[in-house]
């Protein structure tokens, strides 16, 4: 059963007012699936009844729950992988050169949802060979939903969530068991500060070296998109970096940014920024991926849709098998899995990282 047009319009208006996010026509199924748990929890038979109640009697709490449910992103650790490759191979090395006086890097994960993105950034920084213990990497993670922020801050993820996208070596290094869940260790949690923020409101933020604003613009109309990008440019340092979602771009919205693409991965910099000192990885060298390494072609090529992607993107996404073939079983183990030789990893020493502000 799908909700009727009047109920759908009511919800999309309400979400637009409170979050600037557009729920386009044809997304009835989305409203239905996101709101069904709330309807059940509130004791309504279906989503239609829940909306009818809210249409008749305003209820701030219920309204906020609905907006939160409709604006929460699905996410996973190292989502899309490519941005984290660029982060590791270009952005961190570049910032290590440019910030060597302060040893301080600030990163904003906007619309961080349940926290996988900021923690993925934090883990990348901790594992990065250039970011030694004298560096302070501070990550600000914001979201519109108070409820999801609390979850994110807690840093607890179910087995099913840590199975997604997270390399096993990172799971054992940066998480600990917490009953049936896994919890991000304090050393990683302390690098991230969480704060509630609506991207439609003015930003009250320190300068940022890197901004992750992924899969957020897609929900906004083009006026809001342009406005958000322009305001991000004001908090982003002139030599900083902006990551957008795979289907998003600044092109046609804000020409204050220029685009750098390496293979499938894209990052934006403010126009006029000093040229990068870090050489871009050659297309084809992509030890891409957070796992940086274990790569050889399948004996059987993926078929269908996967094959199409493969044909188009393999040269940029994977090295030739010979390049990664380990020289001996022992070398293979460490060569193909850089962290293996270091397992298990003791807690990082050095001064604790300071939270923002």
């Amino acid at each position, binding site marked *: 059963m799908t909700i009727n047009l009047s109920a759908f319009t009511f919800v999309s208006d309400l979400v637009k007012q409170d979050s600037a996010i557009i729920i386009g026509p044809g997304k009835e199924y989305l409203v239905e699936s996101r709101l069904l748990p709330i309807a*059940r929890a509130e004791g309504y038979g279906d989503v239609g009844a829940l909306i009818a109640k809210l249409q008749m009697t305003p209820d701030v709490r219920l309204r906020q729950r609905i907006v939160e449910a409709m604006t929460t992103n699905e996410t996973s650790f190292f989502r899309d992988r490519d941005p984290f490759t660029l982060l590791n191979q270009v952005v961190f090395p570049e910032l290590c050169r440019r910030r060597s006086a302060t040893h301080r890097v600030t990163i904003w994960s906007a619309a961080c949802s349940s926290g996988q993105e900021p923690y993925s950034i934090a883990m990348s920084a901790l594992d990065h060979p250039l970011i030694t213990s004298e560096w302070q990497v501070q990550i600000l993670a914001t979201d519109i939903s108070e409820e999801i922020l609390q979850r994110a801050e807690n840093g607890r993820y*179910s087995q*099913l969530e840590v199975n997604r996208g997270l390399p096993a070596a990172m799971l054992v290094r940066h998480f600990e*068991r917490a*009953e*049936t869940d896994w919890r991000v260790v304090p050393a990683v949690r302390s690098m991230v500060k969480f704060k509630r923020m609506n991207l439609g409101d003015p930003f009250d933020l320190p300068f940022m070296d890197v901004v992750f604003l992924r899969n957020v613009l897609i929900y906004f109309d083009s006026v809001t998109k342009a406005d958000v990008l322009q305001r991000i440019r004001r908090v982003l340092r002139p030599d900083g970096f902006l990551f957008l979602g795979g289907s998003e771009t600044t092109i046609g919205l804000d020409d204050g940014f220029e685009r750098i693409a390496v293979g499938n991965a894209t990052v934006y910099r403010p126009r006029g920024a000093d040229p990068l000192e870090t050489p871009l990885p050659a297309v084809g060298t992509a030890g891409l991926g957070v796992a940086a390494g274990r790569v050889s072609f399948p004996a059987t090529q993926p078929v269908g849709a996967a094959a199409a992607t493969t044909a188009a993107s393999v040269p940029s996404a994977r090295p030739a098998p010979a390049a990664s073939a380990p020289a001996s079983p022992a070398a293979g183990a460490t060569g193909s899995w850089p962290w293996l030789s270091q397992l298990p990893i003791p807690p990082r020493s050095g001064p604790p990282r300071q939270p923002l502000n």
Partner: protein
Amino acid sequence: MTYIPSADDLEVITREVWTSFLDGDPDGLLPGETTPGAEEVTGCVHLSGAYVGSIMLRCSAPAARYAAAALFSMQPTDVTQNEVVDALGELANMVGGNVKSMLPGPSALSLPSVVHGQLAVPGAQVVREVALSWRGETLVVSLWQQAAQAA
């Protein structure tokens, strides 16, 4: 004092297994009663090491058939004993392994065994138990511990 997973923990783990492989619907498992119908099937794995005991998955015969049918993508009416034994064994293994990771370690997990009817482990007692209802059929998950260790 070592941590023993709670009945809630057993339920969370069972729910994750059910959601992943049998149902896709987290609400598919509801609180239930502890008395399955006359005919029962039990899947069991034993733990030995720092913790000595067992994890049992006891369910009604129809629930066992539904579970096997879901795992093997078959019609419940086409399911044979072999599939029921394989399915219940693997389900007990998945629940058991996850429960083990919450218990004091190291302990080793046995290969699963599956019996028709109830299973009693000599010298062991139930320390945690949760009763669930799945498609109107009963499912009981229990954690056992050797009496000598429990004392």
